[in-house]
């Protein structure tokens, strides 16, 4: 009898289906690995189990009893604990307090029982004795700790709940080797005690080191469950890729020809900075260079560093053959560099302002304008918006009156009035509809044909495979593989992304 069983669980946000049909079966005394590519729905599945997301349909059985997990509190009461990927610690409180945060020991109903708090903390800190690093103690405040130490606190907090079912959503991302080994010892110990553990990780070596069974999710559907003993890493990748394996060149249109004769428009040599190291690549005029790999492996950081949005990195960048080191986006823009962020709400949209004002800022800067004459600006803005088939009532309507996809089109249109030499796309289609995506990539191709050098980072593998002439796969802040020509297959992409860094 499985400890926890999910069958046919689904969840949609509006028109976006996050999880189509999630099935998962976990026994007592096993470490069950959950794996799937970016946006496949595994996080949604975990959140449903943990009660922070309510499913639209499906059934959850705990000890063969149907249950409704109405919230995080209810999940704890049912005996389900979760380690969240996004750390959820109170920065100004001590390690001891954080470990007991969800369930502070009380005296007389109102006072925190200091002794119980300390002894409970000591118990879990002792588990990691010797690998916690300098400055780690029960009395240290969390804000003084390093990233790996914070992650340990988060793990201790999850362990302290002592729930029969434990979910770890990427618990090892910041840990070093010794810490991971100790953590795995603890997991084996818990397994021996009959606990059920769900483990999400993108590191193939870890999965094979600790897992008993693996369940693969693809495009919101559970594809299958295998015993780790019966499968190898290549087999897991094949499950993740599915039937459409050997898709090399895109079905839609061939990538723009690589104008090698025109020379490189952007050159990056030995570039290192926060979150990435030893970047070496060149982008030719008319080329679309793809950045692939798992989320947050340094792709965004590299693009933002080139654009001058983050503190300068070490290394050399050339733009049109000339040395280029932008200390601000302003400088980068003036030199013909363009950047589109996928987080339009934060980096792109000037909320509450007219569409026109959202299209013109780059034009102001590149043409060193002082006056904003509406009639002249309209003549510039309209063609740029039309090139993307942007739907809007009038230019003076606020940008917030548009759909997400159309807002992103407005943000992109601002780069079309004065043509850039290099266009950096940082996951530009996040959260926009399919037709907007199609319009966007049609434009990107056209820009490439006109000689713009393009770097495309996308968290959607299909977008990369369909549009990039060449793909650099990122893993742990480094480029671990370059895929060119017929190597650009989903299988190769996954294999490079998931292999141990």
């Amino acid at each position, binding site marked *: 009898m499985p400890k926890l069983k999910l069958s046919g669980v689904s969840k949609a946000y509006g028109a976006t289906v996050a999880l189509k049909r999630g099935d998962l079966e976990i026994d007592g005394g096993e470490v069950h690995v959950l794996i799937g590519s970016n946006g496949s729905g595994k996080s949604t599945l975990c959140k449903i189990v943990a009660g922070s997301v309510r499913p639209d349909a499906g059934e959850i059985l705990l000890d063969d009893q149907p249950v409704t997990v109405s919230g995080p509190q209810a999940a704890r009461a049912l005996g389900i604990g979760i380690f969240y990927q996004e750390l959820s610690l109170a920065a100004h409180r001590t390690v001891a307090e954080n470990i007991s945060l969800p369930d502070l020991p009380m005296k007389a109903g109102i006072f925190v029982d200091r002794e119980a708090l300390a002894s409970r903390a000591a118990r879990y800190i002792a588990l990691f004795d010797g690998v916690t690093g300098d400055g780690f103690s029960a009395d240290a405040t969390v804000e003084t700790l390093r990233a790996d130490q914070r992650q340990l606190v988060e793990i201790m907090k999850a362990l302290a709940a002592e729930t029969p079912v434990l979910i770890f959503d990427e618990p090892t991302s910041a840990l070093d080797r010794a810490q991971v080994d100790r953590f795995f010892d603890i997991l084996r110990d818990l397994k021996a005690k009959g606990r059920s553990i769900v483990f999400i990780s993108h590191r193939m070596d870890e999965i094979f080191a600790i897992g008993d069974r693996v369940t693969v999710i693809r495009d919101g559907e559970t594809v299958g469950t295998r015993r780790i003993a019966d499968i190898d890493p290549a087999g897991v990748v094949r499950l993740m890729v599915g039937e459409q394996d050997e898709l090399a060149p895109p079905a839609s249109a061939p990538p723009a020809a690589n104008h090698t004769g025109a020379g490189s428009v952007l050159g990056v040599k030995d570039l290192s900075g926060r979150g990435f190291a030893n970047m070496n690549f060149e982008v030719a005029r008319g080329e679309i260079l793809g950045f692939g790999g798992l989320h947050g492996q340094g792709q965004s950081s590299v693009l933002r560093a080139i654009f001058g949005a983050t503190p300068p990195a070490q290394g050399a960048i050339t733009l049109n053959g000339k040395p280029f080191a932008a200390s601000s986006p302003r400088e980068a823009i003036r030199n013909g560099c363009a950047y589109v962020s996928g987080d339009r709400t934060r980096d792109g949209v*000037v909320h509450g302002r007219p569409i026109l004002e959202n299209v013109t*800022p780059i034009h102001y*800067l590149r043409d060193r304008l*002082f*006056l*904003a004459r509406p009639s002249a600006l309209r003549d510039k803005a309209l063609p740029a918006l039309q090139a993307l088939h942007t739907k809007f009532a009038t230019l003076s309507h606020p940008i917030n009156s548009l759909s997400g996809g159309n807002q992103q089109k407005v943000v992109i249109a601002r780069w079309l009035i004065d043509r850039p030499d290099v266009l950096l796309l940082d996951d530009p289609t996040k959260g926009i509809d399919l037709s907007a995506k199609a319009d966007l990539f049609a434009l990107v191709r056209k820009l490439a044909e006109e000689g713009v050098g393009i770097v495309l980072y996308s968290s959607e593998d299909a977008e990369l495979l369909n549009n990039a002439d060449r793909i650099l796969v990122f893993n742990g802040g480094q480029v671990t593989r370059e895929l060119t020509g017929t190597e650009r297959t989903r299988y190769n992409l996954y294999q490079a992304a998931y292999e141990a860094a």
Partner: protein
Amino acid sequence: MMNATLLMEFARKPLVIALLLIVALLVLGEALSPGFASAQQILRLLIVAALLGIVAAGQNLVILGGREGIDLSVGGVVSLSAIIAGNLMNGMDSGIPLAVLGCVAAGALFGLFNGLGVTLLRIPPLVMTLGMLGVLQGLLVVIRQGIPSGRAAPALSNFVSQPFLFGLPGIIWLWIVIGVVMAWLLGRTVFGHRIYAIGSNEQAAFMAGVPVKLVRIALFVLSGVFAAIAGICLLGYSGSSFANVGEQYMLPSIIAVVFGGTPLSGGKGGYTGTMAGAVLLVILQSILTTVNIDESGRQMVFGATLLVLMLFYGRGRAMRA
């Protein structure tokens, strides 16, 4: 149905609300004290409103720039400017150009300090400008011990109180010009669009190449300059300068901006509404005086007005979300 909705939308615009309230308050004033809404009296109210409105222009710019932008030092700059102007002209028309130059320079300088503190040292505007107000108040005490208060030049007094064109004194025309310039600046210049951009989404503005710090410093400088201009006019209104004459402008300048539809969070609104807000506040103040409420009572009413306004706008935002 459609018309009703449009009417509702129209009636919800801050400018319309302010104008309706102005009419209502004038009627109320007339009822309380016949003659309150006479042409002569309304003209006097407009002159007082112009003084407040000029200070509020700078306040408006700083608030539009967002990131908790606010200038609490405007009152101090008004006082300082009135004293500098009084001493430089000392009752003589020939001293006016130098006085204007000196005051504007002083206002710009203190605004520059505010701007540098807020951008380079990352001091919150509330703290920075409150500190600057303290500095200015101390400075005023020192100045007053050393030099006489000074007198307004006749031409300046005439500019503020005597009819100049179409029966309106020069200060009203100055205010109208400032109103037109502000509308042009905010709506028709790149600088204006950049103010809205940093006020609405500073990160997006930065990513689009807006020199965020430079714009914000300019806003504080402009606020100092507007306060300095108001200080000169205030000298003309009162004849001679006395310390802390400008202190009364701090809170009302903020209220006028908020009344006019520019939220304290910045990024939207404009100066036309602020002008209406200034007129509204001056009428309110006048009514309070008419019914014999003293200065402390008026301050309480102003403070409460700001809180009620915040409540009103806060609710509006919550309902839209």
